[in-house]
């Protein structure tokens, strides 16, 4: 998936940075937790939301639809839709 975003690790945190911004209207990087960073990284690597949701729902015994909704919500919050 081609994206304007970059996931960076610094000072013990994960930072999602919109590297395509022009600098005039500054968009602060989002600090995200480890689980969110893992999902974002997989999306950036080209995995589909459905694939990720299936794996995460199996790992944590959560309905797949719930995970899909959470991932969509996360992407919306981060402006990554």
């Amino acid at each position, binding site marked *: 998936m081609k994206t304007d975003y*970059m996931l*960076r690790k*610094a*000072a*013990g*945190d994960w*930072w999602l*940075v919109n*590297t*395509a*911004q*022009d*600098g*005039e209207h*500054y968009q*602060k*990087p989002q600090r995200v937790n480890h689980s969110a960073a893992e999902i974002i990284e997989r999306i950036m690597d080209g995995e589909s939301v459905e694939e990720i949701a299936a794996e995460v729902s199996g790992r944590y015994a959560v309905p797949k639809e719930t995970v899909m909704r959470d991932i969509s919500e996360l992407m919306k919050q981060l402006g990554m839709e």
Partner: protein
Amino acid sequence: MEKSLTREEEFILSLLKDSLTQNKRRKDADPGVNWNSFLILAEKHEIMSLLYDVMPVDMPKEILDVIRLRARQTVQKYYRMFFLTKYYVGKLRQAGIRCAVIKGVGASAAYPIPEYRKSGDLDIFVPDEKEFPRAEEVLSNNGLFRDPIQTEHHCVVFHHPEGIVVELHRALIEEVDDEEANRKLRELNARFVENITEIELLNNRFPVLAPPYQAFSLLLHMLHHYLHAGFGLRLLVDWALFWKQKIAKADRRTYLKLVKDLGLTGFSEFVTAVCMQELGLPDGAVHESVAKSKEAYFFFLKDIFESGEFGDEDDSRMVLLRGTSVFDYFREFHHQMKLHFPRASKVFVCWPVLWAVTLFRFLKNNHEVRNTTAIEVFKSSRERSLYTKELELFRR
């Protein structure tokens, strides 16, 4: 000046070395370290973020928390400076102005984690004097306010509404008290124009000086601060990390020739010696040999510690003399006069009046601004100058 490094200074150096060499094996906390003093020292030198990944796990939690908070703040500030740099460099380039980012984002490219490079200001270099007025105009037209009081001659200071200082440099350094060196530096500006290259960082490209000239600019930056109030560990880290990169032999030769021509080989060797000894810079990365007397080396290192970030800690440290004779004092005084009165000082009959005004300002500023005395300033300068001879500044 203390005759030995403190436990805190030694421990900071060993952690910095781990950080720069990416040594993943965590040290145990040194029980002899006073953690409050340690924090103050790390803060003063603005290297807290570099310590974050190498801090001993058994150190007090409240100290770890402070370091983590500071590291996080440095990262946040870095991103702000990164995109602000992108914006203003973009504006200048759109206007066809050839510029290079110096220090800041440019220096951070050599860091294993660029976000750990603390930046306070944004520094942009426009080496072509003819393009400089237009560059000032571009910055003024794009949200920056020109400071009404300009105290430096090698750069123009602007302010961003968020309180960030943007310095537009016409030269890499303020004029020094060596006419030949100043002449050579002015001539070099033409070469800088021809030696702007690009680096890629976080999916963005920035103009910077080509490696030998970038190294030269880092050295001049240290020299600039060294000649005035001193510099701290952060600039030393910039130096060590720059040379840890793969630098082509031809670039290294060009750099060595530049410093030789300007009479800065001794200074370059001292800085490099400290980086080799304390920060893990490999032998031969810059100079073939850097043999220095133990005493001078120690004083130089201690001076760095006592300077802090740009020597703001001790108000009596304002200038550096190149010797301790009456002539050295007078030379520095005369140089200060010329810096303060660049135009009037060209008319030599005015010199007695300008000396008197300079002396008056010196005494007044010591008392009112620096809250110190002329005697303290002289004492501090003399102490630093005792070992300066070994630097062989401007000796060609």
